[in-house]
């Protein structure tokens, strides 16, 4: 079931009511969980709290589809049979004459914690140091940060703690250079950015493996290095009264850890005690959008940097829309989304627009005309397209030609079957039968308790369908993985008919 889908109850008979009941357990050890707040989403505002046996029971329910949710400290908020922590896919529960909705086992995935103590190499705690945890996926050279980082900060005992993490591999960055952590010294020094497991250089960074429901310790030693004074000049056409400059450094696996933010009044400022190293000084506008940046090597005697004079890449977008849009009068908006340094950078422009200065990095492309359109292809001149993402270079000219399909706004749905029997909780994937590299065209859902699923807008064409028992969308949204599985795929032709319903057999292991 897709998250955020409004559930509507259908009435076939005037009176019968149904029950949804079960036990909430820890999915790792199977033990019942006490004190879990269980609810049925938007359909009813009732919230139950489980007792020691973990049991819950909702009665007097009308026929329909319900989203069963639970919330508890140490587990966050999860939906029934959610594939992974924070993943959108879960299984809806359908009540009805022949449906099984009682004695459900609602397994919650426990959250993990990364914690540790930061010391200065002489046994003294280092307070006020930010620790950034980046979830990393992929293997070998394809490893990259998949989402925004989570941060902790060391206290006066040097201890930090980052709770609420999904299990997986993490790159940890001890982003130095905080005023509180500055060592007292008669010569300027500061803590440099340090990478788990104690590397001074991002290229030597390792990965921390975090298990589900466990607390993983990652202690660190950061040693002060010489620090210099950096003179910052803003060179923008209309310099604002106050500018924000965010200082970032080169991190492991394509990350760009943010080490400090400074406010500049007027067009010049001085930053004291910058640890020696290489930094990007990013000039931001009032909406936190980067206006320009400069790369600086800071030595013991400091450095001088001018930001804003050299623009980023100039991006010209051309959008071709195939088919007939549902809302022809609504404007076409191209949105480029980047995991960015902190949160998303969203840039809207009318179709065929020019972005005079776009910061470098990987961007996901969305075309919106009333609703989100399916992207058929992206051709980039001056940039590369890898895995459905456009990698914008540091500078230069980029021409993007984007083809989107507007005719099929309808969702395509169906049912997962094992033989004749509906199968719930399956990860249902739809992949174009050609051009597997375009992961923007991939569709995923999880089957509900009656085996039904819904893929969202799918352009007509030939596809391969899968119903996996295990794994996450991120495990399959990869051309190499699909190449290996293609022989097991079920051939499907999407016709563009809104009433089309597809039966997908469980994919053999």
């Amino acid at each position, binding site marked *: 079931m897709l998250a955020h889908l409004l559930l509507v109850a259908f009435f076939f008979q005037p009176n019968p009511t149904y029950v949804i009941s079960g036990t909430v357990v820890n999915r790792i050890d199977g033990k019942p969980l006490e004190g879990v707040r269980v609810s049925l989403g938007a359909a009813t505002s009732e*919230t139950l709290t489980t007792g020691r046996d973990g049991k819950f029971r909702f009665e007097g329910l009308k026929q329909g589809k319900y989203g069963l949710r639970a919330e508890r400290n140490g587990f966050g908020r999860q939906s029934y049979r959610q594939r992974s922590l924070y993943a959108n896919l879960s299984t809806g529960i359908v009540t009805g004459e022949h449906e099984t909705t009682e004695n459900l086992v609602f397994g919650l995935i426990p959250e993990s914690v990364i914690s540790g103590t930061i010391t200065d190499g002489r046994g003294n705690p280092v307070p006020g140091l930010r620790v950034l945890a980046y979830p990393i996926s992929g293997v070998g050279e394809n490893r990259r940060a998949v*989402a925004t980082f989570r941060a902790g900060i060391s206290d006066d005992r040097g201890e930090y703690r980052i709770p609420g993490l999904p299990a997986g591999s993490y790159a940890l960055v001890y982003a130095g250079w905080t005023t509180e952590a500055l060592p007292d010294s008669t010569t300027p020094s500061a803590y440099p950015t340090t990478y788990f497991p104690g590397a001074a250089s991002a290229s030597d960074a390792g990965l921390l493996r975090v298990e589900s429901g466990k607390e993983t310790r990652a202690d660190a030693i950061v040693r002060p290095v010489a620090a210099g004074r950096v003179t910052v000049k803003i060179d923008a056409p209309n310099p604002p*009264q*106050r500018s924000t400059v965010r200082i970032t450094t080169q991190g492991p696996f394509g990350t760009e850890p943010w080490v400090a933010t400074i406010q500049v009044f007027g067009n010049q400022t001085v930053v004291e005690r910058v640890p020696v190293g290489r930094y990007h000084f990013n000039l931001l506008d009032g909406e936190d959008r980067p206006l320009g940046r400069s790369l600086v090597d800071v030595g013991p005697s400091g450095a001088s940097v001018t930001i804003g004079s050299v623009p980023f890449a100039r991006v010209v977008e051309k959008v071709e829309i195939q088919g007939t849009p549902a809302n022809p009068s609504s404007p076409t908006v191209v949105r480029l989304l980047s995991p960015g340094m902190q949160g998303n950078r969203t840039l809207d422009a009318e179709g065929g627009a020019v972005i005079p200065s776009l910061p470098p990095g990987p961007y996901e492309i969305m075309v919106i005309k009333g609703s989100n359109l399916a992207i058929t292809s992206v051709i980039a001149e001056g940039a590369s397209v890898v895995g459905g993402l456009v990698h914008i270079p540091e500078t230069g000219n980029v021409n993007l030609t984007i083809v989107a399909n507007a005719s099929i706004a309808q969702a395509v749905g169906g049912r997962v079957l094992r033989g004749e029997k509906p199968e719930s909780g399956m990860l249902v994937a739809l992949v174009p039968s050609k051009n597997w590299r375009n992961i923007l065209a991939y569709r995923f859902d999880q089957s509900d308790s009656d085996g039904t699923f819904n893929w969202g807008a799918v352009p007509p064409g030939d596809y391969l369908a899968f119903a996996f028992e295990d794994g996450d969308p991120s495990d399959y949204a990869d051309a190499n993985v699909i190449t290996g599985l293609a022989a097991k795929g079920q051939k499907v032709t999407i016709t563009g008919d809104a009433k089309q319903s597809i039966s997908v057999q469980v994919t053999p292991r």
Partner: protein
Amino acid sequence: MRSSLVLFLLFSLKFMALAQDDPNDSIAISGSVTDSVTGRGVSGAVVTLISGPSKAQFTELEAAIQSGKRAAASEFPKGANLSATTEEDGRFSFTLPETDFIMMQVSRTGYMAVPARTLSNGERSVQLRLVPLGVSEGRVTDANGEPLQGILVQLVRPSIEDGRRIFRITAAVGTDDRGQYRFWNLIPGLYYVRSLARFGINSTMGGAVPPPEADLAYPTVYFPGVPDRREATAVKVLPGQSTRADFKLESRKAYRVRGIVKDASSLTRIGVRLMQGGEAIGNRVAVDTSTGTFVIYGVTPGDYILQAFSNGTPSLALGEVPIIVKAEDLSGVTVAVSSGVAVRGRVEYLSTDKTATNDGSDPDPRQRRIPPVEAIILEPVRLPVAGTQPPAVVDREGNFTFADMLPGRYAFNIRGRLGELVSIRSGARDVMAEGLEVGTTTPEPLMITVSSGRGTIQGTIRGLPPGEYASVVLIRANGLSGVPTVTQSRRPRNSSDSQFEAFDLLPGDYALYAWPSTQQVEYRNPEALRLLSGKAVKVTLRDGGKEQVTLDLVNTEN
């Protein structure tokens, strides 16, 4: 002559040492830095030493002055500016040319800042004591003792600024997965701890986390669990120690408030929050910045002020609307933000008998330039960001306007040697005593009366420890609150007593108080003054008169 010259040189010191004297004339200063609580040495503290010119340089300079030579300031001999880091045992040492004047300062993170100390003549061994900062920590649990994560805990420090008691949020942190919070590097003293009703877990990773469906909320309370600060127990943070304040919170049925911020498309960084008793309470809020629609989750029944703000650069815009939440969701709330209301006023200058301009050049009061009027926010918790109001320029007719004053309670002041602020009124309100309440409608114009007299009160303060200064407040009887004049004491060199002088005073009955400058007194609060009245020295000043008094220190601590 000699001592005043040394003082002058101290202020013209440059950061370079010129120690090319005969090594036989050098002196050694050594000492140690200890922790006032453990008594052990403090390592890694930076000790800074500033000295006057050496004896040799001094003799040369004196000879030059005697011979009538005029030296430019840049030719004056400079003293030394040295610094050293303490060893593991807290010890430090310096060698420098012999000199009359040595000032020393020490600093270390995790310890309170201390003022610089002047060494007495012949003092060669120095013991410096540092007071460690404190910790406040605790745990927030629900009624069953389960830890609550993501509850915002604020530390509110009562302090006295400009004679008024104000409460500032000095720090805020969310509880972790164990329900724990911790504040460190706290100046020892009293604090209020406040737990904010931010319910649930604010995680987003990969997908968006849907808003809480279980509409339960935890109340916003002060330690040990009361809604009102006046009933709260302040926690005492002690030097180098940790003070605990745990919260046990009971969840309540809560509702949602939906509405729209008007003209949102023209605003940046829109925020919405609920206020109660002038303080923000922590609700989870979702705002669609493109349309201005918002939903506030977890609102328990009650009366609130709904505040919307737009934190644009350079100015902040704010709007407030009262709402009442009953046992159901509330919809259709509309709130408009504006960049504040205009507050106008006028400065009236009463006395004409003495020149009181900044430069003393123009005796005509009509031509007198009055310094700008400053507005000081007394309830900073009311504003979403630390907003500072630019001072309002006073024109030749004495009129001034604060163009964009945001809601809050303000005090007003005019700095500079103008005379005495006799009264500040807005209609019938005594703004000097109570401050001015600014809401969303324009308050009555401010009437500031300034006057300057010809009287002087001088005095001596007894019992002040060496190296310390006193604050002296002179309160002229006038209505309920009186009119305060504040001055600082100074200590002539080689004198054990500290002295003060206040001039340009109007005739009248004065009550005088003195306390160490490290302490603060609520001298604008008549109640607080009444408690001290036994300590006051009273004096009646005639027009143009001069009075001498001796004051004992009022100790406001304990």
